[in-house]
Structures are given as C-alpha cells and as structure tokens.
C-alpha cells in the first residue's frame, strides 16, 4: 500500500494558468505504474508540504558518488526520513548536456526510460550551472542509472571544488550575431579538464561559459570564472538600403532616439540622406544597434573572442564580473584553439596552486592583484584590461623604465609583423 500525505498548501499550487510542478509530481504519485515512483513522489510531496508548513528545508548533504568518480552527484538525505521514508535518500545526478542544449525526442525518451527504471521520474533541463538534473534516487540506484546512461554517451558534470559543467549559447547554429564556434570552444575547453571535473581537488569551483557575441546570453561575464565571448575587430556591415527601410517604417525620430542616441560611445550618426555613419574605431561592439536592426547591421567578418576571467556570485567577498584578460584572439586554426585551452590550463594550474580554500578565481585575483595573476599565466598587461589607470600614487615604481621598455618592444614587434 503506497503511503499518501495530506498536502493542502501544495494543492493551492495546482491552481492558476502557469503549468504546475505540483500537478506533475502528483501525476507521477497517482498515475505512474511503478510503485517505487509512486512511493518516492508521494513521500516527496509529504516532505515538501512539511517545508511549506514550517518554512524550513529538510535535506542534508553527504557523500555519494559513482565508482571511479569523486563528484557529479548532489547527495540528499532527509532529516525527516522517519516521517517520509520513501524519499529518505533523494540524490540528484548532474549530467552534462550536449554543448548548446540540443536534443532529439528519441534521445530524451531513452533518458526517460532509464530514469524510470532507477529514479523518481523528476528531471530538470537545466540547473543554473547548466546540468541536466535527474532529481531523486537512492544511493544504490545512482550507480545503476549512471552505468546505464554512461554506456550510451552521457557523462556526469561537476559538483564540489572542481571544474564544472560548461554552458554555451545556441550561437552559430541559429543566430546571426554569432562570431564564434561556441560549440567547439565549449567542448574543447571542458573536455580537456574531465579529470579536474570528476575528481574534485581544486580550491573551489571553476566554470567555463561561452557566448557567441557580446549580448552574452549565457551570462558568462557575470557567472563564470572563464568567460569566452565572441566578437569582431573589422568594421560592422551596414546595409544602407535596410537602414532607409527601417527609417521609412519606424520614422527618423525612432532611429535617432533608439539607435543613434543609445550608442554608448557615440559612434553612430544619421546622415542627411538617411544613411548611417559608423565610427568603427570607436565602436565598442556593445551590440545594441545590431539588436535593434538585425537586418541592416551585422558583425564584421574578422571574428575572434574576448576572454574575461574571474566572474562569480556573492560568496564570499561579493559579486564580481570577469575581467578582460585577452581583448581579442583569433580562433581559426587548430593551433588557435589549442592556445585557448593552454591559457585555461595555465589559469587552472595557477588557481590550484595559489587560491585559498573555498576562494574563487576572481577573489584570488582581488587578493593578489591582476598583475601577479597575469605574470603567473604569462600574459602581458594591456590597457583594454582596465576601466581607468590607477588613481593612487601609493605604489612603488622603481622598475618603471624596464616596464616602459617592455611596452615599447611589444609595440615595435606589433608594428613589424
């Protein structure tokens, strides 16, 4: 006999027009043919109702993994397991999605069939780090489910102090703004660090995210340690006929107010003949005008990436954006891609050796200073890395001449090449 629980508060969440997760869980509990799923989901609803009544959570972590790995599972043991025994163990498996989050129905059905054998029947696409979250199974079935899906091509993501599952936008597969092969960057980076993902041994988490253009739909700058953003360095492409068409359709005032005046570096101006003038040397590639007029304006063709390092959320010293480490890098040849992976290796090695326990890359850079980090990974300073030069004179500068000479040499090399 499957144990059921009264859930008056959760019942309220079955009302209203937005699809209800409670209705979904209840359907598993009441209609799924498998008794294990019925029991687990009834029990889950019981515990969740208890949380709603008492305004407290009742899950605790622990140590659960699969054979050969040290991470990838979010262990959950109930603190109120005596009252809700069928969901006493309710672990989540973090599974890496395909780069770009493309799926077919047949593959999703295959995953659903496996999950039905071993789990609660609940799944999320995706968690905030980007994993497929298979929510709710026992310690024993964690291994069985992983064994089955691992055989047909799925691997666990990261959990704990390790390289985490990466994310990349839909990008080149369906977006005209894409300036990079997001898919290739994503897989090359993350698949190079699988040992660091599956066997957590870093000071803290390390995340890669890839966005194909500065719209940064993957929130890479804000929430990844290693943010790769597609960009271009030649002139943007302007279709003047389309500009005229937009003006005809929306009016001159609309284009002035919403395109020209919104340019953050005043690089646009509208000519008397309703063509658009672009000061490409002062365009900062913010994407705004391209977003407003995607038919008239496009990125140039000299594509590459900007790399920013050190983005993270609040814990411990506050939110941080990533910082520019490479203003521009071509990604054309295999050597280019390998160079990017090499920078990631240098960064993670430096992080592993120099960060304090539970310190993120951005916090480490804050503590030791950007210049020490750059020297550690072998990258030269560049004025694109700063918003402004230093304001404080309290710094020792007796090596000024040598440093100025380095800059002059680099400029001379650049001019010669």
């Amino acid at each position, binding site marked *: 006999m499957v144990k059921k629980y009264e859930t008056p508060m959760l019942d309220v969440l079955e009302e209203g027009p937005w699809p209800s997760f409670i209705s979904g869980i209840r359907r598993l509990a009441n209609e799924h043919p498998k008794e294990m799923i019925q029991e687990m989901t009834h029990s889950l609803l019981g515990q969740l109702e208890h949380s709603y009544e008492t305004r407290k959570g009742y899950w*605790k972590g622990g140590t659960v993994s699969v054979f050969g790995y040290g991470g990838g599972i979010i262990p959950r043991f109930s603190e109120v397991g005596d009252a809700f025994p069928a969901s006493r163990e309710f672990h989540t498996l973090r599974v890496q999605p395909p780069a770009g*989050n493309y799926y077919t129905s047949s593959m999703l059905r295959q995953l659903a069939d496996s999950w039905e054998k071993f789990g609660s029947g609940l799944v999320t696409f995706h968690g905030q780090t980007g994993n497929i979250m298979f929510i709710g199974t026992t310690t024993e079935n964690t291994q069985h489910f992983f064994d089955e899906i691992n055989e047909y091509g799925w691997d666990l993501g990261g959990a704990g102090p390790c390289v985490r599952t990466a994310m990349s936008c839909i990008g080149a597969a369906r977006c005209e703004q894409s300036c990079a092969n997001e898919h290739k960057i994503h897989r090359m980076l993350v*698949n190079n660090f699988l040992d660091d993902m599956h066997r957590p041994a870093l000071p803290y988490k390390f995340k890669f995210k890839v966005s194909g253009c500065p719209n940064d739909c993957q929130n890479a700058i804000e929430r990844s340690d290693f943010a790769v953003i597609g960009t271009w360095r030649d002139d943007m492409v302007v279709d003047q006929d389309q500009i005229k068409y937009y003006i005809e359709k929306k009016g001159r005032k609309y284009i002035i107010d919403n395109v020209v005046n919104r340019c953050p570096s005043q690089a646009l101006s509208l000519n008397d003949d309703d063509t658009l003038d672009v000061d490409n040397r002062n365009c900062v590639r913010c994407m705004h005008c391209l977003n407003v007029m995607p038919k008239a304006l496009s990125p140039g063709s000299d594509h590459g990436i900007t790399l920013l390092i050190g983005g993270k959320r609040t814990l411990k010293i506050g939110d941080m954006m990533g910082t520019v480490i490479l203003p521009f890098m071509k990604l054309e040849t295999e050597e280019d891609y390998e160079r990017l992976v090499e920078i990631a290796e240098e960064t993670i090695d430096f992080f592993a050796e120099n960060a304090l326990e539970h310190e993120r890359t951005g916090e480490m850079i804050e503590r030791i200073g950007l210049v020490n980090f750059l020297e550690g990974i072998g990258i030269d300073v560049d004025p694109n890395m700063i918003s402004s030069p230093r304001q404080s004179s309290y710094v020792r500068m007796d090596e000024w001449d040598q440093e100025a000479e380095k800059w002059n040499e680099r400029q001379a090399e650049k001019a010669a090449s």
Partner: protein
Amino acid sequence: MSEQAAMRPPIESGCPDGFQYMHPTMIRNYGNWAYHEDPEPGVLLHVAKSGDKIWTVRCGTQRILDLFTLRKLCDIADEYADGFIHFTIRSNVEYMVAKEEQVQPLIKAIKDAGFIVGGTRNSVAMISHTQGWLHCDIPGTDASGVVKSMMDELITEFQEWNMPNRVHITTSCCQINCGGQGDIAINIQHTKPPKINHDLVANVCERPSVVARCPVAAIRPALVNGKPSLEVDEKKCICCGACFPPCPPMQINDAEHSKLAIWIGGNHSNARSKPSFQKLVAAGIPNNPPRWPEATAIVKRILKVYKEDAKDWERINDWVDRIGWPRFFELTKLPFTKFHVDTWRGARASLNASTHIRF
C-alpha cells in the same frame, strides 16, 4: 571480491557533441545566418545567407518536469517539430521547424498541451530559479512554488510584448544567490544570526573551515558547556548564512526572520551600458508560502512603473540610470532606508560625489 569485480569503470566521455541532435537546417547553415525577425510573440524566424529559414516556437513549462510531461514535450516534437527540442538558459522549451506551414499547428499543439507560448523579445521571460525546499540542503524558501505563483500573475507579460525591453526575473533561496543577476531578483535575506546547536558542532563541522568561511570574521572557536563548538559575534554578524552549508548545526533559516528582498537592475548583456549588478530596492518581505503574495505585489508594482516610464529598449538598469534612484523610489512608492546605502567593500564608489541632482 565479487562486488569489486562488478564495479564498472566510467567512460569519461565528457560533454556530448551537439551536432548529432541538431536540426538539419541548423547544421546546414551553421555560422551562416543573415538576420532574424519576430513574426509574433513566442516565435522567431531566422533566415540564413543561403535563403534557408527556420522558425522557432518558444514555450514555458513548470521546469521541474515529471516523465509524463517530458514525454508530452517529446510527442509534440515528434508530431509537429521534426523531433528536435532545444532548451534555453531560462529552461524554456524551443521547437524548431523549417516550414512556415508547420508553425501554427505547432503553436496550437503546445497550447493544447497546457504550455505557454511566449518569452521572446520585450516580454517578461521565464523566471530563472533554483531548487529550494524541493531539493536544496540550505534553502530559506522554495523556488518552484515562488515561480509558479509569480508566473500565474505575470503570464500575460510572458505571452505579449508589453515591456520597454526584455525583463529577466530571478529568484534565489539563500544569499549565495544561485539564481543569478536579474532585472528583478527576489532573494532570501536573513535578518537574525544563526542559532547554534552546540551539541552537534564538534562532530559535524570542520571548525577552521567554518571560521574561514565567514565574510566578516564573526565566528570563533569556543568551548560551550565543556564541548568544543563555535560562537558568533552577533554584533558583527551580517546574517548571510555562509556558515550554514559547511556547518548545518548553525541554523540560519528561520520561519519568521528569513525574509525576502527584491533587487533590480542586474543585466548580463554588454548592450548599451556595461554589464551591471542588481541593487537592493525592497526588503523585509514575508516569506509566505504557498503563494508569496507580498513579493509578487512588489514585483508587479515595479513592472507597472517600468512599463509606464521607461523608453523603448531601456532595460531596467538603463531606465534607472536615466531617471535616477530618487525618482525610482518616488515612482514605485517603495521606502528608501539606511539599508539601501552600501557598507560593503568599495561602497564609497556607490555614493553621489557630485551636485548631479534632479529636482
């Protein structure tokens, strides 16, 4: 021995190749798209340089999917969308079709199945959220329930293009803020220091790492009732809850004193201004399951003022940058308190060191 022999070593295959699951029109035109249009809310049309077209229909779901719902989404893909499914960063489902005549039947099938078409362009997008009481080990509130309650009330804004620009809303169930930055963020804000169960600390917690975890160095080792434990300097404590994950006997969640706070102006895009972090606008909001009406009311109030006052293409941060914070508090009628004035590192940079004042 027999048990060990049965253990299967993992295949470390890592992140799978997405091309095997990609719509053929997308493979064919990879990296060669020309432009896109927005034929109607929830629908995108991308046109490739080759002339190929692909229509995308986006829909919102409950995010925590049960197998019945997942298979229903697959059925729609099989019958109406060539078998392909894409998930967005905000957990929306996207179906892609290569023929225009497939679009309306697909929309109808999605709606008939109870999913909500929308979430494109200048709409209120699906709320990005975390696990909450359903699965997290440290949550101060639920996630899916808050989102369900809010989306019930914001559904029209998801389905239509009423906003000056897109609005990304996020929720987080603790101050670590896994939900991330949002134009509007609804996050737990604890208001009392942790309650310590001293009998358990020595056995459960690695005390030096808990001491190290505190952002304001308010935790120190102590002997309590003859047992090694930890104590909190409650005058220094900022009630952030950072000690709770590594030390569960330091309970931070409180049915009465764990409140909700609302933050606005987080924006990940580089478009117009540089990416920005969200700023505090309201706090002390009751954590009130199962519907959290007080939080939803404030979100709706902010959205209403934004809709009326912002200009086209202004995200919430762009809008406030233009009108200034005093006007924001005036228009939204939210109280401005001493807690809005930052005290964290770098706080002086958030003060107005000028005579730039709007009257």
